[in-house]
């Protein structure tokens, strides 16, 4: 395994090893580029994962202090845990369910398609679906996404069967077991999905793609990638010309070191990435690195989300099998006659009894709540996920009053629901409940959002430097050897789960970085 010198200023430093950083690290290493990847967490592989919701949560979650503000319900229900992110090699791709969808064509042009939505900072992406199509194909190959290429779909579980039958009764057309980054057959390295039903806790079979046990070891095997785990980046340093020169980081004992770099790529997910840029403020960049636009940390998106659980007079046992076992895409179209712009996906979801107690209706108690859980065995469930409106005031800022273990200001996450988000959520709740009503549900629960799993937009991509933080390659408008490589570069969020797009952008960015390096441009 490679080991690079702290003074080696020819390496590319990547911060974070999740969907964006882990893939970028491997792709660059495959091309012969020397990479040092910092990961704040430790290394946890399938043999370590536990089929235990709280046990797993304690094992791999990012639990450093965060604060919240704004009118979204999470600020009340989970004020210290606004987002649900993993701190480990592989990042949130250990937790993720695996739903892997391409954006729809119109979603790349949200400003043009939706028009001027009051209070929203909508913008068209500087790239489109045609440009990303070849990279989407590469990403689907890498992640072995079902129902793409020659890969079959997964079989439907109990939760899916209720969902599918209800959808058909309502007249929905596009219903299937999803495009999932889960093996639908045995491969040489990892087996097909065994339907264990703990996808969120890390797949012990390795049947679900994660950069933890796919891209990272593949990159390491080239001899070009060094992953420095339990190493948290604290500050990005630059020289008088404004180029970045290295990264100050803390090792597992809290000792600080400086790793020199030719290029720095930030991929710490959409809360930590802008926080790191803001914490890298200097005399030359008093508002934070790469922030001449003032957009670093702004336009934070978390998707319109919510869930519907419903109880039937007979058992469902929804927890058996894949956590996200199917999708209805009919509502993902843009159709303002529904009272909102953009669309949403409906995806089956199951959580175990321990998480159900925490998330079904946070704060609620008494017989109404307890009898809902009494029927846990007879419950079916789905998650609703749609495009939320970017707003300049939804943002990550530094909370200077509360410092972390390294003495740095902690991030505050501010989020107000936009009226469009609220209208979409209400529509989605109605439709979700109608599906289960059609199947004879005796009770239904429109369940509020969980801590955010899809975090996006806080270093957004823009054509013009004044509108965003990075250009069409994820390269800082201000600092040419600084890149953003995670979901924070999203201009808008689209209705789809974000990770396939993060991975496609990372593969594309690796091509760009390698070619710019060989041309001597960076």
């Amino acid at each position, binding site marked *: 395994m490679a080991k690079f010198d702290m003074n080696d200023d020819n390496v590319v430093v990547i911060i974070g090893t999740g969907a964006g950083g882990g893939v970028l690290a491997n792709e660059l290493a495959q091309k012969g580029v020397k990479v040092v990847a910092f990961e704040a967490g430790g290394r946890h592989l399938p043999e370590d994962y536990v*089929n235990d919701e709280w046990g797993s949560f304690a094992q791999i979650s990012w639990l450093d202090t965060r604060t919240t503000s704004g009118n979204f319900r999470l600020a009340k229900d989970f004020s210290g845990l606004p987002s649900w992110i993993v701190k480990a090699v592989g990042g949130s791709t250990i937790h993720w369910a695996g739903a892997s969808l391409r954006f729809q064509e119109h979603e790349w042009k949200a400003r043009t398609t939706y028009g001027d939505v009051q209070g929203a900072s909508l913008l068209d992406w500087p790239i489109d679906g045609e440009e990303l199509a070849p990279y989407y194909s590469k990403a689907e190959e890498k992640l072995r996404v079902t129902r793409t290429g020659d890969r079959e779909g997964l079989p439907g579980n109990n939760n899916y069967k209720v969902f599918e039958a209800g959808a058909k009764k309502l007249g929905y057309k596009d219903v299937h077991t999803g495009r999932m980054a889960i093996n639908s057959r045995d491969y040489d390295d990892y087996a097909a999905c*065994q339907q264990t039903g703990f996808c969120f806790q890390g797949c012990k079979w390795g049947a679900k793609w994660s950069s933890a046990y796919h891209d990272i070891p593949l990159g390491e095997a080239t001899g070009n990638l060094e992953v420095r785990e339990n190493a948290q980046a604290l500050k990005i340093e630059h020289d008088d010309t404004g180029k970045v020169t290295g990264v100050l980081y803390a090792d597992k004992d809290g000792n600080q070191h400086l790793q020199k770099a030719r290029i720095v790529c930030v991929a710490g997910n959409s809360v930590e990435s802008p926080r790191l840029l803001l914490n890298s403020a200097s005399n030359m960049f008093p508002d934070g690195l790469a922030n001449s636009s003032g957009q670093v940390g702004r336009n934070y998106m978390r998707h319109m989300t919510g869930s519907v659980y419903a109880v039937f007079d007979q058992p469902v*046992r929804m927890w058996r099998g894949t956590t996200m076992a199917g999708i209805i895409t009919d509502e993902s179209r843009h159709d303002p006659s529904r009272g909102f712009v953009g669309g949403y996906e409906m995806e089956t979801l199951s959580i175990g009894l321990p998480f159900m107690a925490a998330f079904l209706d946070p704060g609620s108690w008494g017989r109404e709540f307890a009898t809902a859980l009494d029927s846990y065995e007879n419950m079916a469930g789905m998650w609703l996920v749609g495009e939320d409106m970017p707003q300049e005031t939804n943002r990550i800022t530094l909370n200077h009053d509360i410092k972390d273990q390294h003495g740095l200001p902690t991030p505050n996450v501010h989020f107000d629901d936009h009226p469009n988000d609220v209208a979409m959520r209400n529509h989605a709740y109605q439709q979700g409940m109608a599906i289960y009503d059609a199947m004879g549900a005796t009770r239904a629960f429109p369940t509020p959002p969980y801590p955010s799993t899809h975090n996006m937009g806080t270093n957004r991509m823009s054509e013009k430097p004044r509108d965003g933080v990075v250009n069409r390659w994820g390269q800082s408008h201000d600092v040419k050897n600084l890149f953003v490589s995670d979901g924070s570069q999203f201009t808008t969020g689209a209705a789809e789960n974000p990770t396939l797009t993060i991975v496609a952008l990372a593969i594309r960015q690796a091509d760009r970085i390698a070619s710019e390096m060989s041309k001597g441009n960076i």
Partner: protein
Amino acid sequence: MEEVRKLSRRDLLRQSVALGTVFVMGTGFIAAPNAAWAVEVKHLKPQTMATLIQMARDIYPHDHVGDEYYAKAVKGYDSADAMAGVEAGVEALDAVAAGRGYGNYLSIGWERDRVDILRSMEQSPFFQQIRGGLIVGLYNQEAVWPMFGYEGESFSKGGYINRGFNDINWV
């Protein structure tokens, strides 16, 4: 279950006082009337522990889940650190009950009358501490999962691929 131990019915009946659905024994134990389980209280007054157990059940009432699981869920408050706050909280609860003409919280016969009192103090840090603690303390006990049909860990059994992931028969 380590803290909640078994004892004989004879031990129990020798010296105990019925309180709510549990017995408080003079020796620092509270126990089920049928002696199926008992929990030792080292810091709290036994009566306080008995009240906490009733309160826990009133907050998340599952009629098919026995008191011992509620006892286990609140057992952590029997510590030197938590003691003062919990004694004060239960005292306040009993004061509200007394104000409504009851002897104390435990002596109230109907759940709805106890719940009315809990609603009136729902915003208090004490209530929120007990309620919040139950989410993990009660529902994360593996022993209660089967009572809700939840099957827990499945990897060691080979997942559900051959064990009914798609066995629903009414759709």
